[in-house]
């Protein structure tokens, strides 16, 4: 997971203008903060998706094996 984060971080840094915002707000959200948020969001989003698919997959396998029994 850590390696994954590091790779993502390095990859994203290499793309100019990736996920940056100057969104309107009364507090300064900060460009660096927007960037890292987008990156963490993407990573966590992928992790959640994988988890969901994993559970679905497990359910399918276990479900079908239970039916077999």
């Amino acid at each position, binding site marked *: *997971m*850590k390696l994954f*984060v590091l790779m993502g*971080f390095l990859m994203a*840094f290499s793309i100019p*203008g*990736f*996920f*940056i*915002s*100057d*969104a309107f*707000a*009364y*507090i*300064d*959200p*900060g*460009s*660096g*903060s*927007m*960037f*890292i*948020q*987008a*990156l*963490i*969001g*993407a*990573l*966590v*989003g992928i*992790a*959640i*998706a994988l988890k969901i698919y994993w559970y679905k997959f497990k359910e399918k396998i276990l479900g079908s094996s239970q039916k077999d029994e």
Partner: protein
Amino acid sequence: MSNYKIETSSFRDSSGFLFYENEILYRQINKSYSEHYDFLMNSGLYEKLVSLNLLVSHSEVDHAPPKKNNAYKIIQPELIPFISYPYEWSFTQLKQAALTTLQIQKIAMKYEMVLKDATSYNVQFKEGKPIFIDTLSFEKYEEGKPWQAYRQFCQHFLAPLALMSHKDIRLGQLFRIFIDGIPLDLASKLLPLKTRSMFSLLTHIHAHAKSQKHFENKKVDAKKSHLSRRSFEGVIASLNSGISKLKWSFEDTEWGDYYSDTNYSDFAFNDKKNLIQKFIEKNNPKNVWDLGANTGVFSRLSSDHEIPTVAFDIDPVAVEKNYQIVLEKDEKNLLPLLLDLTNPSPYLGWENNERKSFLDRSPVDMVLALALIHHLAISNNVPLENISRFFKKICKNLVIEFIPKSDSQVQRLLVTREDIFNDYDIENFEEEFEKNFIILESSKIGNSERVIYLMKNKTL
């Protein structure tokens, strides 16, 4: 509109501001915020949060606005009995405030709204639990837009909690220097290496600080900013998990076990309790501050009788233990807070007036100052005259315990230093306090040399 006074802490957000008139607190909502306010009220979010005791309630009132040109509505928010600040909270209080902020954000998202800011000053304590006080912090969620308050949340909650948990509990005091939370590059430098192996701290603090540095003063393209709903929720979940994992395992400090380390018998201890109880009942105060409260044994003599009580102590362990008891017993009237009386919370922020000083939040109806005076007079070299003057400023009634030099607790303080305190005796004590107070009653505690007084302020 005549005698209104704008609350000095509510100038940053252009959505509105707080003001007082005839000692009643109001909030003006500006036209620029009308769309979001109506959405908050009509979507069911306001009702939901208020029903869960997560947001202060308010009523819309027919009141002349102080600034007519911008005014949309005037509301009258529910009052919080005592305003406290993050540098006065124990570890668990700050952690609870953080989790409450995230819980509100999660609920808001279900109603298509987000928190536009996440400062710890938006949270206060009511009936023992954190509650959000800024009704104007909610705005409509726009699909794809990142969380504007993310940086502020990390600075106000994650960074200080991580520092307090992994480095030193006293680093919570950095709040006194940094009004908008702990800068992440500083937190990253101070945190131990092991925190880089923790996903939430690696990403939300260390990488976050690096990212801030990298993009410093860089022009950015707004069109390329996008955070899907799932990713947005993922960021909140990740912060929630990071905060939940932070723990503070404290070792007992000097005062953490004070009650088991006293020099008086059970008889004297019970006698002291009975005397204080009697003085409280006699005086029937509206509110009480217990100064040097430790874990709040004597504070509960008032809070258990539904008197709003603030229990101040200098020791973070004592305040933490006290708050744990509040949570465990679901106590509604006791607020434990961290305070060094020799250097109490000052005015902070813009014009030195954004966050109130300790003295500015006084006077209180009654102060309990038990087993305290020797620490002020002997450990901190404060003359009795100055101590009396201090109490005169902060309370209308005073329950104070005098501990003579012969007492072993005082002798303990004198073990390592020369006794230069020639004026420290009961005669001088009474003389100095009688300049500012009327001594209504006094009584010796059990079979000890200690004396408890009930005094009334001559001027307040």
